[in-house]
């Protein structure tokens, strides 16, 4: 069967942080918005939410306005995504599209208004999670990148990296394996542990393959919470100082 349209690969080499990856949303121009997006990426069990909570505290003490946004948290889509996951009727495309709808809702309703108002948006996971999960499931890479052409390139992306063994132990310790996080929809085998392991391994591989393409700042997530937090603060602090200096130069002439 022929597909309806043939997509031409879009090679976007240098995307400016704070601008759309692709053609974007034509009715929402975002150029010159003062806010920043900082994304914390990584698999389950790397401590993203702890790091975000600490960062928020630190930023607010310094006087920065902060909002948080997280995967599948949109008002519009959360119930549908949960229902769909529970009923196991999703296929890889509907899975991907429900996530994209959730992201679009949060982008237009939370992220863009916050950028306009000068907030720092701390994003618990970003589009790379969607790309990794889709990549593992064999969804066409070019199609995925076109789909998220309406996403805004974050100013900073931190990837909390972990090895397979540590990841598995942490997930088992915290909340155990669930159907989707074990990739059981991919029918890799009946043994849930083996399926989980194979799935998490491919997921890690997907994240690694995106590191260069999307300019991830890679942090070793096996270190102590405070050590990672210090590193995050150092890099974010440097970035904010630099952008304030350049903003000041622009205004003064």
């Amino acid at each position: 069967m022929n597909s309806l349209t043939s997509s031409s690969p879009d090679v976007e080499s240098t995307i400016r942080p704070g601008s759309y990856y692709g053609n974007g949303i034509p009715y929402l121009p975002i150029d010159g918005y003062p806010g920043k997006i900082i994304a914390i990426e990584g698999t389950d069990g790397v401590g993203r939410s702890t790091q975000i909570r600490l960062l928020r505290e630190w930023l607010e003490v310094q006087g920065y306005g902060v909002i948080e946004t997280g995967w599948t948290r949109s008002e519009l889509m959360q119930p549908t995504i949960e229902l769909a996951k529970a009923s196991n009727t999703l296929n890889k495309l509907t899975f991907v599209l429900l996530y994209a709808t959730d992201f679009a809702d949060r982008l237009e309703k939370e992220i863009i208004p916050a950028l306009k108002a000068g907030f720092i948006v701390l994003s618990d996971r970003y589009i790379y999670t969607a790309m990794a999960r889709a990549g593992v499931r064999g969804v066409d890479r070019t199609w995925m990148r076109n789909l998220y052409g309406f996403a805004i390139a974050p100013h900073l992306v931190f990837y909390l990296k972990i090895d397979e063994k540590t990841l598995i132990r942490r997930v088992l310790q915290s909340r155990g394996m669930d159907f989707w996080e074990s990739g059981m929809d991919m029918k890799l085998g009946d043994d849930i542990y083996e399926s989980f392991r194979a799935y998490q391994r491919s997921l890690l591989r997907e994240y690694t393959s995106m590191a260069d393409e999307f300019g991830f700042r890679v942090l070793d997530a096996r270190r102590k919470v405070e050590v990672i937090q210090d590193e995050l603060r150092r890099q974010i602090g440097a970035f904010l100082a630099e952008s304030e200096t350049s903003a000041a130069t622009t205004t003064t002439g």
Partner: protein
Amino acid sequence: MEGIDGSGKTTQLALLAKWLSAAGHPVLVTEWNSSALVKAATKTGKKKNSLTPMTFSLLHATDFADRLLYNIVPPLKAGMIVLADRYAYTAFARDAARGVDRRWVRELYSFAVKPDLAVYFRVPIEVSTDRLMARRVKLKFYEAGLDMGWSSNAVESFRIFQGKVLDEYDRLVEEFGLSVVNAVGSITEQQRTFRKLVSQHLQIEETDEQLDEQLA
């Protein structure tokens, strides 16, 4: 089958389905935005009028992907005829009219199966509005494009929005080679043209007398 609201395409589709079934062709009808998967989200979004052109577009694509998997591809594999009341072209036309990037929507739907025949029932705004008004159809918020804020009057907003949708369809006719049926003529006339178009793809022989009999 494509066309704006009030173009009569659903009537035409029902008559075509009757004819095909009578001729021994197993038919399956699938309607735009009908999958159970996105029903809850669409309902929530519509009730609160909180859908944006982007989420509107993506929800419809999700619906389409779901129907493609469950309602379109299996019957095609089984050698059946799938009659789609609206197809991806509806998204191309409506989403672009709402200001979504044209190329993005086309790429979004690149997973869709290319139809063997795409028929566009072309009708001027006045005719479609008159038909809808005659049926006392209450214009809905999104169908009337009221989300765009072009006019607070439903009928006026509908005219503006559908006008933009028509312009988009005109682009699509050329871009995707849609077969155009003049949807202003009588139902029988249109159905005759429609059946002729379909026969070219199915080799169904039929005289006009037989058609008149069925339509009577």
